[in-house]
């Protein structure tokens, strides 16, 4: 063993150049393999209810029989008003926001004995104005103190842009039905929003007095919100199974207990199957588990709101959406009973949901991995950058064999000579540091541009940025190599330092991000993995030219704008839609994905390109 260490110390090329590359590569490979192992039975776990107070499915749900007549009555009334709106011109979407519908909602809720209020809001994002009016009503707990509340949300338009007539009607029927129970320990709030994107956000912001000026404050409030359920029943026939959507903004998730309770009640008590992540025919095989996990990771990584429930998550309110799917024999009463039973479970809560996991990856409705198991995967990938950065830093301080390209300075000649004989080189930090910091600050420009221009210019701007991504590194490389306007030409050590600082920042950011949004960190880490192995090439001119141009082509394929275009092309969505959604997320939901893309990924990518371009000079 000592002999091996001595050999290693006597072989600096291996220690500083080969070994880090090897280690980094192993880290990336192990990180990916780790993730692929997670769906196996040995690494994932069966879900379980952690919170004793929930007692899912222990109560009999009585929402049946005559309540169905009430449901039909309400539905007919609303349908009539919606048809009127449609007849007067305008599309289905336009019909909902008519004052007549809103008045009808209020009068129904008032007649059921609830306190009713409305809230108008208006948002502008990427040149598009979103406005609407929320209607909500509160059942005060007859024997409880008004310190806690549960929210039931029924958006007029579902997350899939369908009219949610049955869902809204069900909410109204449940409001009337719940009002007659005396066993609520928490207030119950019924919220009818015009859409699934902005309505709940406006309402929840105003509930916590965090709303912008364009959103009205709430005239009526209750206690701290303990949980929220979103009802979506856009079908006009009986359904087969429930689809539970749980992803929040920025990859935040509700407490796993809430999801488990919903699965336990739907599956165990009501006999309705529960699906997740649009996996309809889940056969519990490895492939399906992996696919479910990847779908979950994609949503988490992109960080957008997947339904009306997502807006609750930033306020630490656990929320899920229940969507009806498929053609089967379950009717609105079955959905109503499921929600009744879920509300009874939430009603049993004594404290905020906290027992179970907030960081998890689900791969089946009853299987998950927790953060302790999956985190090493993203950490290893983030760690590969840090390993490389540290190795480069050590290498820049250790130059026994190479002759520095710069001539020894006359003033410090003796000192440098001494340093060189010891194998220690002085580091020139100013240029690398300012370049890396400058490029990271430059990331603010695309961040601002993509969140503030009008939506019709998004596609053009993306193409412009593809071109900028080619020109900007070339320009920077030319300046650095030829010393245009610079007094001292750059030395190889400084290229290493530039790369070291860039990777160090990348590794730091990604490992921090991994604890907050694992999937985003993993995705960015994987896309940035080539940057660890990109450096300024040395050797004969034809070799350098050939290799670096190949490298540049490949690197440009994984640049942020190219990846965006590629994904949009593959998914068949227009770039404009994606970017409008992203800008909407940034402006209204408080989505941070763009910051990671433009201020972490993009600068690191630019520096990789600069290094490759510079080997051409």
């Amino acid at each position, binding site marked *: 063993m000592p002999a091996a260490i001595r050999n290693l110390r006597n072989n600096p090329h291996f220690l500083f150049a080969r070994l880090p590359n090897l280690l980094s590569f192993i880290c990336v490979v192990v990180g990916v393999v780790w993730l692929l192992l997670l769906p196996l039975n040995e690494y994932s776990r069966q879900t379980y209810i952690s919170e004793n107070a929930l007692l899912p499915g222990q109560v009999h749900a009585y929402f049946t029989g005559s309540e169905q007549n009430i449901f039909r009555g309400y539905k007919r009334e609303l349908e009539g008003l919606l048809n009127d709106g449609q007849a007067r011109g305008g599309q289905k979407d336009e019909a909902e926001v008519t004052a007549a519908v809103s008045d009808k909602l209020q009068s129904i809720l008032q007649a059921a004995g609830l306190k009713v209020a409305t809230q108008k809001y208006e948002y502008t994002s990427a040149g598009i104005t979103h406005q609407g009016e929320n209607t909500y009503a509160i059942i005060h707990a007859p*024997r409880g103190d008004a310190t806690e509340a549960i929210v039931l949300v029924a958006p007029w338009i579902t997350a899939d842009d369908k009219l949610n007539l049955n869902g809204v009607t069900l909410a109204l029927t449940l409001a009337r039905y719940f009002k007659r129970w005396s066993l609520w320990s928490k207030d119950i709030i019924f919220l009818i929003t015009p859409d699934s994107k902005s309505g709940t956000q406006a309402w929840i912001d105003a509930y916590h007095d965090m709303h912008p000026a364009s959103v009205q404050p709430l005239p009526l409030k209750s206690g701290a919100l303990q949980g929220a359920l979103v009802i979506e029943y856009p079908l006009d026939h009986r359904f087969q199974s429930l689809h539970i959507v749980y992803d929040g903004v920025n990859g935040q998730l509700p407490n796993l207990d809430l999801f488990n309770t919903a699965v336990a009640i739907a599956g165990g008590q009501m006999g309705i199957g529960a699906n997740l992540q649009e996996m309809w025919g889940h056969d519990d095989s490895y492939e399906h588990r992996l696919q479910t996990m990847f779908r979950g990771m994609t949503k988490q990584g992109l960080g957008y709101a997947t339904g009306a429930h997502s807006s609750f998550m930033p306020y630490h309110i656990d929320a899920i959406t229940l969507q009806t799917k498929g053609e089967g024999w379950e009717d609105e009463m079955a959905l109503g009973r499921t929600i009744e039973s879920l509300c009874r479970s939430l009603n*049993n809560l004594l404290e905020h949901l906290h027992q179970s996991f907030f960081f998890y990856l689900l791969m089946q409705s009853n299987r998950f991995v927790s953060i302790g198991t999956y985190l090493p995967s993203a950490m290893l990938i983030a760690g590969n950058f840090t390993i490389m950065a540290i190795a480069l830093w050590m290498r820049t301080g250790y130059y026994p064999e190479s002759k520095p390209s710069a001539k020894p300075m006359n003033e410090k000649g003796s000192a440098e000579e001494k340093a060189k004989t010891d194998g220690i080189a002085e580091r020139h930090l100013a240029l690398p540091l300012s370049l890396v910091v400058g490029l990271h600050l430059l990331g603010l420009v695309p961040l601002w541009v993509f969140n503030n221009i009008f939506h019709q210019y998004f596609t053009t701007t993306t193409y412009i940025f593809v071109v900028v991504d080619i020109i900007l590194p070339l320009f920077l490389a030319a300046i650095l190599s030829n010393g245009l306007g610079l007094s001292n030409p750059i030395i190889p050590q400084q290229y290493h330092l530039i790369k070291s600082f860039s990777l160090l920042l990348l590794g730091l950011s990604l490992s921090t991000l991994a604890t907050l949004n694992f999937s985003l960190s993993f995705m960015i880490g994987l896309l940035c993995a080539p940057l660890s192995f990109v450096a300024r090439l040395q050797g004969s001119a034809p070799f350098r030219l050939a290799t670096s141009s190949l490298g540049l082509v490949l690197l440009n394929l994984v640049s942020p704008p190219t990846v965006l275009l590629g994904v949009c092309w593959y998914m068949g969505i227009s770039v404009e839609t994606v970017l409008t959604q992203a800008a909407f997320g940034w402006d209204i939901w408080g989505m941070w994905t763009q910051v990671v893309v433009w201020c972490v990924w993009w600068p690191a990518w630019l520096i990789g390109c600069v290094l490759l371009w510079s080997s051409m000079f």
Partner: protein
Amino acid sequence: MALLFRFLQAFAVLLLVSTVATEHTSNWAVLVSTSRFWFNYRHLANVLSLYRTVKRLGIPDSQIILMLPDDMACNPRNAFPGTVYSNADRAVDLYGDNIEVDYRGYEVTVENFIRLLTDRLDEDVPRSKRLGSDAGSNVLVYMTGHGGDQFLKFQDAEEIGAWDLADAFGQMWEKKRYHELLFMIDTCQANTMYTHFYSPNIVATGSSEIDQSSYSHHADNDVGVAVIDRWTYYVLEFLETQVTSVTSKLNLGDLFDSYDESKIHSQPGVRWDLFPGGEQEGRLRTVVDFFGNVQNVEVENANATEPGSLKEDLAEIARLVEKWQKRDEEYSAILGNSAGNVTEDLPSSSLHLKLKSTVGTTKMAEDGSWGKRLVGIYVVGACAAIWVAGSILGRSSV
């Protein structure tokens, strides 16, 4: 009729013999639930069921210490406000209208429990919160809640250890606070709680072995929670169906033999070794020795003969009775001799009653009315003179 009478006589003799054999003079029950929160409804129902049973068998509220950390009847989640049931048939409302909770809410703490057992309470603590047992008392201690290996959780903040409990009982014995003690506990790993007991005359029984959970029996789908634990359910079933009155002859052996592991789903345990005579003697103690009530009077120094002792008093009373009887006989003999002159022989006291004078109404006298009027005029005149003089003097001084 005569046969029935003889039978009753024999029964009474038997009863007398049995009570003499156990030699205890009072019964006390300490019934403790240690967990709060709605989802622990069953623990409170356990305790209330037992409370109802011991009351039925005659222990009065003043001799029952009931500790309930939470109020399930008034919980807003309770679909049946004001009631607690231990069965989904909801036949018996355990909360009812006659219930005395001695320690409630946050008063149910380890400290209060140990102070109660060992009587280390302030002077101003009311009698209802004291365990007034003495060397002649049979004490039933029933506990239920969430526990583990050698501990039982109290509410959410603290726990009592097996040693704490053993020491508390040890001190009770030293302070002559029990004659015999039956300890019952229904919690997970319950049998570990009595492993450290060292004071004599204790029979202990628990619901489950170490590393075993104690399970709930069934849930009520309208209340929405489990309403009773298995072990308690079957103990109660025995008590309610077999021990129907205070005269029941069923003994502890019968109770413990009724444990059915296939029903309880855990292994209940019994500890006899602290009891004098061990299992053989212990088994003979009747169930009502602990669950029922006796009020035998223990007579101190029954055989002493010095002045003031009971024997002497009894002898004196006998002498007095004899004396009065003799006088009575003499008196009746006199009556028989002179039936004619009864009035003459009447005691003098009865004559006084007749001579008592009555006080009637009196007429107001009208004498000297003019004299009184003159005095009145004179007084008014004097007052007027003083007033006039005072006003003149006051004016001149100003």
